[in-house]
């Protein structure tokens, strides 16, 4: 899952990035409202973690702007203001959730997962696709109730495809969800991960749509050979 972190304080941003990376989030950091606006226009993010106090203004004004123009991406606001009035103001300004600094990393992760779940219209926290079940919090996958061991990037790839719900994702879109802006990517890395997923979960778990991209195969899935 790719998250945009808008935070001007470098040590805080580094801490959040490192913490979210432990839960397989890909985090891009921007430090200004302008940067956030640009990043959101360029890359498809699953959620935004937005600090309110930024060098070029209040994060809430940007959020209000986004909501006005119809950008409905889940947004979690971070702030040092803990008064009830501030929380209400934040939520009414279009935030989906609100965390007061200093917060617990686990809470941030759990809240982000909850936001993503709500955005996807899920009821419980596991994502299902036919016989496949994926638990984004525990980072575990089961096929017919049997646990399957996947590596980190394989998990992230599968999560992206499941969350796309049958929508075709291009190779670039998939790479966006797997790697941060400044991470080096080997040219065949994506193919390797797709190969590994097919090997572990069945050949037609991922369907290649020639010239367009990839999506999950028909819901039944094949038993692994």
């Amino acid at each position: 899952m790719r998250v945009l972190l808008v935070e001007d304080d470098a040590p805080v941003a580094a801490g959040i990035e490192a913490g979210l990376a432990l839960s397989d989030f890909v985090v891009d950091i921007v430090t200004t409202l302008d940067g956030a606006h640009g990043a959101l226009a360029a890359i498809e993010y699953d959620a935004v973690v937005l600090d309110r106090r930024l060098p070029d203004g209040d994060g809430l004004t940007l959020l209000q702007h986004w909501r006005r123009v119809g950008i409905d991406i889940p947004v979690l606001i971070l702030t040092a203001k803990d008064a009830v009035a501030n929380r209400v103001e934040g939520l009414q300004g279009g935030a989906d959730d609100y965390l007061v600094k200093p917060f617990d990393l686990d809470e941030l992760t759990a809240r982000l997962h909850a936001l993503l779940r709500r955005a996807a219209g899920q009821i419980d926290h596991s994502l299902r696709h036919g016989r496949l079940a994926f638990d984004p919090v525990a980072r575990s996958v089961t096929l017919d109730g049997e646990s399957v061991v996947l590596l980190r990037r394989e998990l992230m790839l599968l999560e992206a495809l499941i969350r796309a719900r049958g929508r075709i994702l291009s190779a670039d879109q998939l790479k966006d969800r797997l790697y941060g802006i400044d991470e080096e990517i080997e040219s065949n890395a994506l193919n390797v991960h797709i190969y590994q997923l097919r090997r572990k979960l069945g050949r037609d778990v991922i369907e290649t749509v020639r010239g367009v991209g990839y999506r999950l195969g028909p819901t039944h899935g094949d038993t692994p050979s």
Partner: protein
Amino acid sequence: MSLRLRLVATLGVTLILLWGLTAAWSMRDLSTQLERSLDQRLAQSARMVAGLLDRVPTEAWNDGMGEAPAIPALEGVACRVSSLRGRIVAGTHPEMNDVLSVEQEGYSYRDHNVQRWRVYTLVDDDKRITVADRLRERESLLAQVRRAAFYPFLLASIGSLIALWWGVTRGLSPLSRLQRRLMSRDHDDLSALPIRGLPSEIRPLIEGFNDLLVRTRRMLEREQRFTDDAAHELRTPLTAIRTHLQVARRVDGDPRRKAMQQAEAGVERLTKTLEQLLLLVRMESEEIVSGNGDPTFVGEALETAMAETGCRDRCHWNESVDRLRVELPSALLIIALRNLLENAMRHGAPSTLIKIEAQHMNGMAVIDIVNQGEIIPSDKLARLTERFHRGTHPQGSGLGLSIVQTLAERAGGSITLDSNEYTPFLVRLCLPTPGSSNGFFQASFGNSS
């Protein structure tokens, strides 16, 4: 007691007293006047009788030796004509001998059957004419006149009281409106009260009140901003520490070491911010004991400040710094200089020169600290001494210049900021020198570092 009641009571009592006194006085006057005119009437009637008798031949009443003619009696009036020798010639009320047998000429009071009469006797040539008025008639006349005068007075009094009540109520209505408006306000409503329609007496009061409201609102806003800023400055490093510690617990090796380092850096930053904040608060609130502490050499304090901030290589200062002394404990001067140097280091581009110039001017030590860097527009420059205002560089607590400003002002000095193409950023610190009358500054601060 309400203002209206007080006004109405005071004016009402005064009015009634005045009316009452006037009435009593005019009643008294009335009875005197009435008595006098009735007396005159009595005398006139005696003279009229005398005039009538003059035209009657003397024999007509001198010869008759028989009964004196009795004239039918009139109620409340009596008359008798007699000769000087006392023979009654004619008269009413023969039984009222005790009233009408007055020999002396003039007015007198006489009693008959427990009734008082006013008697007038006229001696004319050889006859004596006595006329009398019963006082009861006179008194009832007086009572009638009094009654006739009393009702208009009563009506006027009641009317004036009503007019008074109405006038006072109407006059005080702006106050009542104001009272209602104040009572219906929220206790945290700080908006100005409307001035329009207020009488000129209370207008200055409300204007003063509105001024106070504006000042209170500004103060509350400043407090709120300070609280928000302090929360931000304290919670942000705390967030960094917490997240990095949590990360460190979950990873091993190099990432763990890095996370711990970041957490430690966060602790350091928090410590620094807290120290600066405490210093600022103490400097504002602590009682400053005046006394004659030893003056401090600027040169020595500058050496220490440069050593503490590690910027000696970048600093360039003139010789006069060593000779200049200021009336400030050395610990405080070092704090001020250290903050200014840290500020110059952050704002100035790395490894550019920081120039320090000191001079003696009008009893003040003027210390200029100039660094190279971008020019700051004047509106931003004005905000730099606000607490937690950090300009564009995110390091530092944003309290340094506030601390120096507070310190300088409490010492009887000042700081001014300037930014132009020749001196991209100049802080001028003015402090009193020994012997200047700006007072001593010996504070009970410890060493803040």
